[in-house]
């Protein structure tokens, strides 16, 4: 099969924007296929996660996971320096990037220094975050995704809809159609056939690739080791076959010691897909050494800040950086399950995306995300490192209306005079009990306090019947009856 035959065109990538959350949610809700695909997948993932922790002391393990991440964050600057020193001592070259653009430039320059025209990628959300593929494409470097889900999504000119399972929005028939259209395979429901086809297409690309680019799940400061978690083997291919390997990671992914890794790995696989372990746990500590016969001769590590050091400033927001990117919060989110990942219009969808994206993109872009939660708490309940996601959603709501600490980009963007006045009115009523007790009159006024779209309540539900009295009034009567020795 020729290398040129299945060119993908990332410039045509289908785009979604967090500004369009409502419209995108409307579209997704109206698409029975999307609804069914996500519901089925999320139901399965929830069950598998629950079963996989069966004989574990899950609370103790989560406590340890949170604790390890907190310790890493507490020592973050020192650990980053230690990681850098140990990687360099092992022969891994370390680069630092303030933002995604700078990281893209660094990566492009490494590629160009090797006259690279073809890059093969393992799954990496941070490179999605910085739109690396498009950047490389502009420089005439083709970047091919090798994780099967990412590959399918790239063939379909889309972005991932889930951080662990990028193609979870697609069903078997849709995938068959994509492979048929873009690579000429037979139309089929035979998953083994499709997998084998992708295998043979991608193997050629691995052999031809000049550079492999991967993410990192944990970077161990103590030993200068990059850990990658995967099932497919494309991560091992990406980091072993091409002559150059570039690993890209957010600065928060560092852990202090090697012994910190086993508990986090145990939490990650079970939380993500309900697996007790993944097929491969790949730990890379150096490029090919003298006498070794395979593996890249050059390994680079790009440490990307991109807003993370600003999250780091604030004690409450800091918890956001504990995330180990398992996706359990989205698997258990009733909103994500209904609207799917693309609706969020961000690299990281679902609850973690709603608390992370505002820092990466600003609240002006993402103002509908912190409210896109019923605060049901399912995300916080399953988070393997105990991030208080609902509290952080509320914190960002506070920031959006200008009642936080003002240290999130775009703070105050959602504050309108009308809504602020309404809440002041609510405050006044609720702090003037005599007025409050005016009962039904107050109830009437309260309706006026609700945000403008109260009408939408009755599109789907009958409005509650006014009680005609209040509990205050009933209690008074009840107490009077009791003193007169009668009840009912």
């Amino acid at each position, binding site marked *: 099969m020729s290398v040129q035959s299945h060119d993908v065109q990332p410039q045509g990538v289908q785009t979604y924007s967090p500004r369009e959350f409502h419209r995108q949610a409307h579209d997704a809700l109206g698409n029975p296929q999307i609804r069914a695909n996500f519901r089925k997948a999320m139901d399965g993932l929830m069950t598998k996660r629950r079963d996989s922790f069966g004989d574990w002391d899950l609370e103790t393990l989560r406590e340890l996971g949170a604790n390890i991440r907190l310790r890493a964050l507490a020592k973050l600057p020192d650990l980053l320096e230690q990681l850098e020193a140990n990687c360099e001592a092992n022969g891994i070259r370390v680069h*630092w990037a303030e933002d995604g653009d700078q990281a893209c430039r660094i990566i492009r320059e490494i590629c160009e220094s090797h006259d690279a025209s073809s890059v093969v990628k393992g799954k990496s959300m941070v490179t999605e975050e910085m739109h690396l593929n498009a950047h490389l494409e502009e420089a005439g470097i083709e970047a091919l995704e090798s994780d099967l889900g990412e590959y399918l999504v790239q063939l379909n000119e889309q972005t991932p809809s889930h951080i662990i399972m990028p193609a979870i929005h697609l069903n078997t028939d849709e995938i068959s159609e994509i492979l048929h259209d873009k690579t000429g395979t037979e139309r089929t429901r035979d998953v083994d056939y499709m997998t084998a086809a992708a295998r043979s297409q991608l193997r050629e690309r691995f052999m031809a690739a000049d550079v492999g680019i991967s993410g990192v799940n944990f970077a161990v400061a103590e030993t200068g080791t990059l850990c990658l978690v995967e099932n497919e083997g494309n991560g091992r291919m990406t980091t072993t076959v091409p002559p150059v390997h570039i690993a890209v990671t957010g600065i928060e992914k560092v852990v202090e010691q090697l012994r910190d890794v086993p508990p986090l790995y145990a939490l990650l696989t079970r939380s993500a897909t309900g697996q007790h372990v993944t097929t491969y746990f790949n730990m890379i500590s150096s490029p090919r050494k003298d006498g070794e016969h395979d593996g890249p001769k050059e390994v680079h590590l790009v440490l990307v800040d991109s807003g993370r050091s600003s999250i780091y400033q604030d004690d409450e927001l800091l918890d956001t950086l504990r995330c180990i990117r398992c996706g359990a919060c989205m698997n258990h989110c009733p909103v994500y399950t209904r609207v799917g990942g693309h609706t969020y219009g961000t690299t990281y969808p679902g609850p973690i995306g709603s608390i992370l994206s505002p820092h990466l993109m600003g609240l002006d872009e993402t103002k509908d995300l912190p409210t896109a939660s019923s605060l049901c708490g399912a995300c916080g309940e399953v988070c393997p490192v105990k991030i208080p996601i609902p509290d952080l959603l509320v914190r960002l709501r506070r920031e959006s209306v200008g009642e936080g600490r003002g240290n999130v980009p775009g703070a105050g963007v959602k504050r309108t005079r009308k809504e602020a006045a309404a809440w002041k009115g609510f405050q006044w009523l609720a702090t003037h009990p005599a007025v409050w007790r005016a009962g039904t009159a107050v109830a009437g006024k309260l309706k006026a306090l609700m945000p403008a779209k109260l009408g939408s309540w009755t599109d789907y539900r009958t409005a509650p019947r006014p009680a005609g009295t209040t509990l205050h009034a009933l209690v008074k009567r009840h107490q009077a009856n009791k003193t007169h020795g009668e009840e009912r």
Partner: protein
Amino acid sequence: MRARDAILKRLRERTDSPLSAPESDFAVVTHRGWSQEERLARFERWIVSVHGEVIHAPRDTWTDTLAKVLADKGVRRLALGKEHPVAAEARHALADAEVELVDVDRDIESWQREQFERVDAGLTSTRGAIAETGSLWLWPTPDEPRLISLVPPIHVAVLDADTLEDTFFDVVEAHGWADGMPTNALLISGPSKTADIEQTLAYGVHGPRALVVIVRHAAAAAGGEA
């Protein structure tokens, strides 16, 4: 200011007060206290659950088992090392067999396409295994390079039963991994797989579609039927 210094400065001079690092209690990932039988049973149950094949063999006749596996799987070209006793014994035993032995102590650049297209199976030793997750641990060497366990469609791994340990944490601690990591350390738990097509499991997406573990037992404990 260079990005590095700017980032570190922001982290060091954070707005809120300095953070204190909590101590960690690792008890939950260690102290399983399993017997050798329990370890073996757990290892086998888990690795079989993810499509790994386990074959038990006595220490002194394991190469007969290997020959049978290769014959059953239709392996004609087997890639393997030379120096490790596992490779050396296999080479000795297979010298007159129909299987062609492919040397791997060559720089990959000289035989990449051959490795990708004309090797049926790779044979490797293992350093040990983890009962709790059914995982093999490998530290590839010049004698047994990284890609041997990844590129050929079948990976045959040889495990000595007495190298099984309880947990990943136990392995990292007992073998002092932190004192010196190799270029590449691997845990392998089953053949390559994906569920990216509508949650349906498919094997061999990029790596081997079959993983066969030959578990070697010392004479006294040999013959543990699976």
